């Protein structure tokens, strides 16, 4: 491993993308992810890359569509309202099966909402915020080091499956500084891209990149192909961390910065002799169902904790299918759940199941 640096989450995502070979970035500023753009604006011109501040989020995502069509590694980033604006382009890129990396540093909504951290875009990210039967791979880092590791991995996953990958963070992760250790040799997987529209010199048939298929029978075949790809991803790409789950009385389920707070809760509870565990989904799509099967018999109940009204909660329930009770606690609008908020709910559940 290389040098250790104290860096801000947003900047680390940008540096990671550059290390992963991304030389095309298109974006539009919005709090709390703007430092990512600043970093790209400063660095891209010095390494022969392209940084463009587009006239809008809609323009930026369509620039991503164009650059991704040529097979280049490409990124855009924004925060919640900006990601909503990008949804049309995201659906088109999904239809055209192009690899691209999109970063959403979530803030409170709906609407213009606020600028404080939130996780209320889980549905949009994992269920398809645009139209059509599509998914993106969604990665949920929980530390600055993981922002780096998973951003590099996002480009590899995108190329491997010809799919968009979203880094789903929040204002805490984007704004905080932690120590990050960059690798000397980056784990960049290279892929042949015979589908790319990158000039054919009349030496091969030209490639077509499109999402329009007016014959429903043809469009259905495309969709069947997409679903096969998503199923393959569900089998192969589930990632999660299990923390203190052995003999846990209650297992918490949380991702991103909330998972960090839950670890604090678990450590404090352990001092009082209360055994809590944590499932931390690292992939939100594919949802890590394997994690739940692994620990299902252990706890009396599960407790999902989110900075939302309970969005991942639905996937937790769909996975557990009534085999264990599932509870929820969360905060909304940019408020961050406190250790006390979570402990209060834990105590309530313990009383109920004593």
């Amino acid at each position, binding site marked *: 491993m290389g040098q250790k640096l104290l860096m801000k989450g947003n900047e680390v995502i940008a540096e990671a993308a550059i290390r992963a070979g991304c030389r095309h970035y298109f974006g539009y500023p919005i709090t*709390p992810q703007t430092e990512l753009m600043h970093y790209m604006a400063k660095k891209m011109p010095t390494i022969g890359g392209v940084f463009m501040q587009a006239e809008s989020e809609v323009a930026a995502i369509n620039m991503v569509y164009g650059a991704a069509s040529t097979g280049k590694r490409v990124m855009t980033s924004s925060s919640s309202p900006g990601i909503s604006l990008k949804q049309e382009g995201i659906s088109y890129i999904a239809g055209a099966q192009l690899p691209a990396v999109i970063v959403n540093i979530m803030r409170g909504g709906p609407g213009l909402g606020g600028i404080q951290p939130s996780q209320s875009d889980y549905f949009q990210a994992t269920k398809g915020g645009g139209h059509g039967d599509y998914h993106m791979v969604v990665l949920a880092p929980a530390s600055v080091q993981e922002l780096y590791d998973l951003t590099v991995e996002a480009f590899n996953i995108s190329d491997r499956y010809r799919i968009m990958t979203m880094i789903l963070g929040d204002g805490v992760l984007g704004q*905080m500084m932690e120590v990050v250790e960059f690798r000397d040799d980056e784990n960049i997987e290279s892929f042949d891209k015979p589908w790319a529209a990158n000039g054919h010199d009349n030496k091969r048939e030209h490639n077509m990149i499109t999402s329009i298929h007016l014959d429903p029978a043809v469009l259905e075949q495309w969709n069947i192909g997409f679903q096969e790809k998503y199923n393959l991803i569900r089998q192969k790409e589930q990632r999660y961390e299990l923390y203190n789950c052995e003999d846990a009385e209650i297992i918490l389920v949380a991702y991103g910065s909330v998972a*960090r707070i839950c*670890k604090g809760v678990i*450590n404090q509870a352990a001092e009082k002799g209360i055994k809590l565990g944590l499932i931390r989904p690292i992939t939100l799509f594919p949802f890590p169902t394997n994690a739940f099967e692994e620990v299902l018999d252990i706890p009396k109940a599960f407790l999902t904790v989110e900075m939302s009204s309970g969005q991942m909660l639905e996937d937790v329930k769909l996975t557990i299918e009534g085999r264990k009770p599932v509870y929820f606690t969360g905060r909304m609008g940019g408020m961050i759940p406190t250790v006390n908020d979570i402990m209060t709910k834990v105590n309530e559940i313990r009383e109920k199941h004593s």
Partner: protein
Amino acid sequence: MSLHEIIIAGFGGQGILSAGRLLAYAGMEENKQVSFLPSYGPEMRGGTANCMVVVSDKEIASPVLNVCSALIVMNNPSLEKFESWVKPGGVIITDSSLVHTKVKRSDVKVFEIPATKLATEAGNKTYSNIYLLGKLLTETNCATPESFEKALYGILSKKKHYMIPEEMEVLKVGMGY
């Protein structure tokens, strides 16, 4: 095991966020786990700023604090907001040239340093945060002055490096105050 959960709060422009970054950097120099979480957004634009710094021997669970072991405050509203967050036995350090309300808690150690006054008299108002950080180092041992010096060299741009010897002198005054 050592775990320092530190909140620094005051007005924008007082070097609140710089102070936090310096502490985190100094912790990193000692191979500790560190996190630094700044406030951003409306409160900053309205004039107040705060940051949360964790320095620990072990993996840091949460960078978001709801309690702290040490608090530095550089204005009245910050003392009002964060006084109750300090754990019993913890440390509160105030810039007494600006914080005029008294700390009500009797279960914490309180240090009042007229940092802005001292800095102004010494000819550089921007050093006020360093006096307070000096006291924090003495009272909590969250970092050594040597690591703090490395942090100054690591964080300040090269054209400001000439100020560092002076800043270290200021730090020592704060440490011994």
